[in-house]
């Protein structure tokens, strides 16, 4: 990240993104193979792969929030906290409106 005072947060986010991409790509790849094979197990595996992909940015914000609270970085803490709250609100709205 461009400011050195953000400490190890950049490295933690890098590791998280890489692990998240590897996990979701594996599940999506496996799901696609099962789909080609015509097995009913394909749908839950594909759904799990899609959900794991959607979790990556959320996990990144959670990590940033925890880190900013620990370092008492007010701007980053408020920003990430508000973004997380809005995400939860949007999920709740989508669930109710389905």
């Amino acid at each position, binding site marked *: 990240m461009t400011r050195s005072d953000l400490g190890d947060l*950049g490295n933690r986010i890098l590791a998280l993104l890489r692990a998240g991409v590897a996990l979701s790509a594996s599940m999506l790849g496996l799901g696609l193979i099962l789909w080609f094979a015509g097995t009913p197990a394909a749908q839950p595996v594909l759904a799990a792969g899609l959900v794991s992909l959607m979790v990556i940015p959320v996990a990144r914000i959670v990590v940033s929030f925890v880190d900013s609270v620990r370092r008492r970085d007010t701007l980053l803490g408020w920003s990430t906290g508000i973004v997380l709250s809005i995400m939860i609100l949007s999920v709740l709205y989508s669930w109710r409106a389905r």
Partner: protein
Amino acid sequence: MLDVGWTALGGATAGCLGALLGIGGGVLLVPFLNIGLRLPVQSAFAVSLVTVIATSSVTSASRSRAGLVNLRLGMMLEIFTTVGGLTGILFVNHMSERMLVGTFAATLTGIAVVTLMRIDRRNVLRDTTIDVGLLGGRYRDVECGELVSYRVRHVPAALGASFVAGFVSNLGIGGGVLKVPVLNGWCGVPIRVAAATSALMIGATAVVGSVNYFIRGEIIPHLAAAAALGVIAGSRVGTAIAARSRAKHLKGLLVVILAGVALTYWIKVAG
């Protein structure tokens, strides 16, 4: 089965260009799925939005990009993007296909004009001792090979663009296509920093819309998986090319892509 192959190929191309330009690639994938593979526009938006998360995660996981990300600026803008995304959900669930397509075309046209007007703009400051403020930053610029600084100006413009980007993200695009030109053209952020910061942000933006489409059952799982895997491969190639490309060429490519896709959709609206 053929559709899966084409979707993966379309995803790879969108991922490569998306990573190159700091956008999600949805701006290319939506017309490919909707016009090329004849998917309903809502399904095209839904599949595309999932791939935006993949582009964001892959490009931001690259070490060359990570050094450019302005995390404080990105997180602050993310507030407005997610609020825009949530507002967009309230509208997109009730809009007709013609209205969705018209909004998509109008958004792209506006961004193409803004980018073209500011194509020669460079925001880097060679003086590394200046105070960059709370939101500015420093990084090593590949074009001049030196440590450079930048200040962030016109923050309200960045906040407004982020809100609109979040709103239009429900149209299958991450909104990077809007944030990058505004951050670079008006807010003093160098194109590479704007692209890297936007790339990280669009993942969070796309989550809001993706979850909405996922819960409503609009995402076609096997096509979304093929597109996402294609994007993951293509994004790695795009990120590698971006590190060696000139800023002006990147912007020129962005204008050509935007104008081409906008024209296609204006023809569709008129027809």
